[in-house]
């Protein structure tokens, strides 16, 4: 069953937390709500669950408007950030709780739980109490407790934020495969972009109670449409520029970023919002930047800027590099095995014409019918 939020408004003590928020989650979709602390993610889940009442707007699960229903009547499963296991009950009793509420027969409870206990490998822990479990085991119990009642939708509030990296990876795999098996519509809240990429069919980025962008993870990470989204997903290279020439498939822009000693030209892919003389913000994902030595060619990349490496950090598989290009800082992520530069070394920073894209706030890679580029909208009006 799909979930629809219509014009949801919620304030706490006069401070708006959600501002006329509208969201549609498709049946069977794994939808991730991504955003920083205080952006309203948990409030959205609580409103869907009925744990918090919205000031305005409607919540639909399937075709049913559940806005006036209490949590127990909404048919949802909820996995809490702190697991919220019943501390006085054993693992088995925790997982059986929802089934007992529904007065399911004892042998059916055992049968159903037996399957899930085996599925996530915690049969031996079934008689233990929550305080005797590891974080990963608690997480599995909380997940199964929510799943066994076969809810219409599953809501998860940062369920992996307290886990170590290894447990996270394992549980994410289990979670994704269980969700795909059951086809349960899932909304997953996180502030971690890696989790969003790993799990989400679509990702909504929240900022101050409003959705900035809804997109598939790949689109979101490589083509963020607002400065906030770009910065939040790690695409820190945002260049202020103006369009100086528009060709058939490409355009030439003049980068005149604050602090830049000498403005320079870039050849970029043409976008519908481009207008000659118009100021734009261009975003370049750090992974789309290549570095070459002074005497090396830049491959097929049409854009080249000279810079000096001023900072580098190694995060295991890749090296994050900061390059000063005449007063403006650019960030690149280079695979570790091909990175052999030193700090303070002069390098060519190069990237293809389709690497930069405008932060117009609208999606332009969606199917034509859903394109909402400003330029097109203007044309429609005309």
């Amino acid at each position, binding site marked *: 069953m799909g979930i629809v939020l219509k014009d949801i408004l919620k304030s706490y003590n006069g401070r708006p937390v959600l501002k006329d928020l509208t969201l549609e989650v498709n049946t069977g979709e794994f939808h991730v709500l991504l955003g920083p602390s205080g952006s309203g993610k948990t409030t959205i889940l609580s409103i869907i669950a009925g744990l918090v009442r919205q000031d305005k707007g409607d919540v639909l699960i399937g075709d049913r408007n559940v806005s006036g229903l209490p949590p*127990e009547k909404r048919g949802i499963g909820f996995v809490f950030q702190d697991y919220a296991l019943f501390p006085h009950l054993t693992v088995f009793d925790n997982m059986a709780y929802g089934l007992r509420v529904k007065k399911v027969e004892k042998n059916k409870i055992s049968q159903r739980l037996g399957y899930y206990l085996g599925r996530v490998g915690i049969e031996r822990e079934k008689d233990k109490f929550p305080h005797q479990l590891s974080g990963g085991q608690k997480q599995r119990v909380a997940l199964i407790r929510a799943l066994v009642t076969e809810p219409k939708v599953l809501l998860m509030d940062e369920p992996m934020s307290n886990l170590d990296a290894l447990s996270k990876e394992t549980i994410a795999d289990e979670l994704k495969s269980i969700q795909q098996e059951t086809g349960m519509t899932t909304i997953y809240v996180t502030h971690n972009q890696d989790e969003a990429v790993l799990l989400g069919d679509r990702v909504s980025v929240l900022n101050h109670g409003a959705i900035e962008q809804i997109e598939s993870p790949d689109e979101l990470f490589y083509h963020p449409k607002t400065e906030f989204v770009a910065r939040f997903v790690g695409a820190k290279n945002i260049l202020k520029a103006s369009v100086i020439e528009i060709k058939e498939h490409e355009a030439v822009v003049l980068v005149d970023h604050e602090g830049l000693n000498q403005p320079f030209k870039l050849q970029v892919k043409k976008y519908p919002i481009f207008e000659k003389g118009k100021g734009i913000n261009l975003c370049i994902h750090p992974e789309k930047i290549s570095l070459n030595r002074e005497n090396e060619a830049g491959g097929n990349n049409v854009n080249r800027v000279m810079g000096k490496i001023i900072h580098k950090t190694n995060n295991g598989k890749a090296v994050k590099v900061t390059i000063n290009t005449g007063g403006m800082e650019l960030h690149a992520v280079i695979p570790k095995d091909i990175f052999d530069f030193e700090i303070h070394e002069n390098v060519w920073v190069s990237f293809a014409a389709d690497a930069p894209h405008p932060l117009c706030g609208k999606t332009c890679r969606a199917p034509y019918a859903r394109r909402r580029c400003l330029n097109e909208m203007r044309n429609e009006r005309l």
Partner: protein
Amino acid sequence: MKGVSFDLAMSLMAGVFVSLIMLPMIALFSATSVGELVNQFRSTAVLSAVVISLETSLIVVLLALCLGIPVAYLLAMKEFRGKEILDTLVDLPVSMPPLVAGLALLILLGQNSIVGSTLSNYGISLIFSKKGIIIAQLFVSIPFLIKSTRVAFESINKNVTSASLTLGASKFYTFKNVLLPLAKNGICAGMVMTWARALGEFGATSMVAGCIPFRTETMTVAIYQDVMSGELTSSIAIALLLTVFSFTLLLTFKSRFKRQILL
């Protein structure tokens, strides 16, 4: 060196405290003999006072559970208008001198008040009866149960309650199967304190129920009466019984509570 002096000073103060509690106990225990105690406990007046005290205080604990748990639940889990007033009302009997509480109850339940005269018309007389003792004991002791239960409810993770609701449980099912079991220790602590307070209640009880031997004379009232009439041995016997009872009650509860925390 400074740390050692500090600890020593603290220990000395603790020693003074222990003396303050222990010396009167020792004085009480050394003021009589085993033979004398046995004799006193054969006296029907003493036994009657013990039975009345136990009977009324146990009923008070049950009533306190029925009235106190809902009040504690509201104070701990809900936000509503007048919450501060309700909270203050809970504290009032603790800060009010029992004699004042007794006087207020006497005026309310006496024949001259509307409540008293209405009840009297239906043949219910609360003054100078066991019912009066129960009301007086309940008035002064129920705050202990409410406060302890409230703290217990407040210490429960809110998400645990929410989890129960999202699993399809009603509020009542959640209350019965999640909140009450998790607040069990706090409720038990409140029951023990309420029972001990009800057993030891004197001021309000004597005002409302008087001191009628074999009818309204509780252990504490009997102690007072016996001392006033010069019968020190029987008052010592009852006082010792009360002391041993309270000490055993608290010790049993504390050891049980500690075991559960360790679990």
